[in-house]
């Protein structure tokens, strides 16, 4: 079903804090959700491994929240299933789309209510979590008086309430000031170091690039790509070459077997090829009497890759219409 999905194998060392290696703690198998004629999620096969931070990316309406809803048991799949291989659903902490709490209760009482519903959460943990997210100084203020940043902080505290093995964060830095965003960015790898898995859905791609081990990219409910962030970025890196006759040089470079793509921009060429093949390219051009003025390896950002992947799929879909 996902023949177009790009898979890359992680070449990174085992995730920090993962004592038992890349154990799969949650798996979706052919997960599908239709709302009438709309296919929100289409045959999603995805694994979450212990101690990893998985970026969950996609444009608006890609099916991220629906997938999270199915993982949490809020939405019934039309087909496929979610396998909780080693984590009970109650040990999943999640914020979906936005933090939601009782407006008439204070931050502490909201956590108390949640703790009562779950059972077995010591009162000291609530205070510790409030301290941890910086809300301990306003224990009695009703939630409705909170700023967006404070709501996000309480949301993060609630995800950690039950000592979760899997934390799902949907736009966790939304509404936070730069210092708060930095704190959350620092918190996520910390959670992974503690052996928890984190699924991070965010539109802030630089945030994902910095904290995630792997990314899964969705578009229109389909998984476009899943794999290690570094591998993905490495595959999309290119060589920027400045040369006197760019069109002629482009034709020569295109003929080289290891070159995947060449585009001409002004006097420069953007060549998608392994970085270590730079000398071969330079030699081929030199043999043709074209001499390279400059050759700089450029690394794509996750944003570039994301836009390229999602735009390409969009173009493909458009061509098929």
């Amino acid at each position, binding site marked *: 079903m996902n023949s177009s999905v790009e898979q890359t194998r992680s070449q990174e060392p085992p995730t920090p804090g993962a004592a038992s290696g890349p154990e799969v703690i949650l798996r979706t198998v052919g997960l599908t959700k239709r709302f009438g004629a709309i296919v929100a999620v289409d045959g999603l096969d995805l694994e979450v491994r212990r101690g990893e931070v998985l970026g969950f990316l996609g444009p608006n309406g890609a099916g991220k929240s*629906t997938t999270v*809803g199915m993982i*949490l*048991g*809020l*939405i*019934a799949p039309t087909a496929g299933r979610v396998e909780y291989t080693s984590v009970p*659903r*109650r040990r*999943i902490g*999640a914020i*979906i*789309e*936005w*933090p*939601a*709490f*009782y*407006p*008439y*209760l204070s931050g502490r*009482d909201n956590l*108390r*209510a*949640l703790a*009562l*519903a*779950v*059972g077995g959460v010591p009162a000291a943990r609530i205070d510790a979590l409030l301290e941890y997210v910086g809300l301990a100084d306003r224990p009695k203020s009703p939630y409705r008086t909170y700023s967006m940043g404070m709501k996000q902080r309480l949301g993060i505290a*609630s995800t950690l309430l*039950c000592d979760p093995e899997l934390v799902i964060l949907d736009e966790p830095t939304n509404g936070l000031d730069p210092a708060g965003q930095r704190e959350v960015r620092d918190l996520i790898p910390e959670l992974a170091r503690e052996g928890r898995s984190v699924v991070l859905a965010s539109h802030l791609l630089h945030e994902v690039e910095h904290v995630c081990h792997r990314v899964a990219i969705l578009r229109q409910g389909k998984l476009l790509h899943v794999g290690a962030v570094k591998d993905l970025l490495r595959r999309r890196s290119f060589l920027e070459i400045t040369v006197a006759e760019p069109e002629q040089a482009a034709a020569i470079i295109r003929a080289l077997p290891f070159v995947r793509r060449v585009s001409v921009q002004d006097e420069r060429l953007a060549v998608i090829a392994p970085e270590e093949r730079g000398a071969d390219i330079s030699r081929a051009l030199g043999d043709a009497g074209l001499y390279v003025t400059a050759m700089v390896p450029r690394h794509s950002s996750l944003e570039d890759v994301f836009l390229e992947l999602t735009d390409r799929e969009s173009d493909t879909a458009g061509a098929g219409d």
Partner: protein
Amino acid sequence: MLPLLRCELFKLTHRVMTRVLLLIVVIGLLAAYLLLGSTAGTNEGDTGLNDLRIRAVYDNGMFLVYQVGVILAVTLAASTIATEFGWGTIRTLLPRTAGRSAFLTAKLISLGLFVAVAVLLGFVAALLGSALVTALRDLDSSLGPGFVGHSLTSVVKTAYVILPYAALAFVIALWSRSSAAGIAIPIVAFYAEVLLTPLFNSTGALDWLPHALIYNNISSLMDSHAVVPKEDLPGRWQAAGVLTAYVMAFISLAFGRFLTRDVT
């Protein structure tokens, strides 16, 4: 299920709305007694004044409790479930809990407890109001035979007859995810029945219908204050059965909907 019930009771007791509703029961009952006491006839033998005596609390007083209680129970029943959807808290709570059935059961039990507390408070307020009027108007203050037994029965019956409308409000609010719909529809149904029951009885062809609805059955259990003659009301056991059937049907509908619904 017990942790969820503790959570529901925690939310209920910390909510200003709950306290306001209970306060309305108390103040409403006291105000009604004082108003009626000040406007009723001047002689002790007058029916109006007799209805306000302490010995009539389990009858007339509890009828007032029922009328106020229905509206308040409907308000809380609709709000308790619709706000979970409106605030999005259902998405925070459900994944961490023992399951949807336990969640809904805890909500219904806490609602039942609220109705019980509201009716008990209403009874105490009616007793207090009656004592005040008795003192102010120098009425007979005797309790009459079997006062405690009658009062206990009346409290239980009053709480019981409120439940069908509360359950109706709950299922409508759950279905529509709207407090407004959950409050409005049962109240409209309540008053529509009061207005239409005499009409149905007078037509002949549809005189069986009120027996199958809620209000006549409530009237049968509440002994008095029916809009039709007492001899036209269904028997008590039949009435209790019909009301139970309504409560069960509404609760079943709520479970059926909630267990299969996507929470988006």
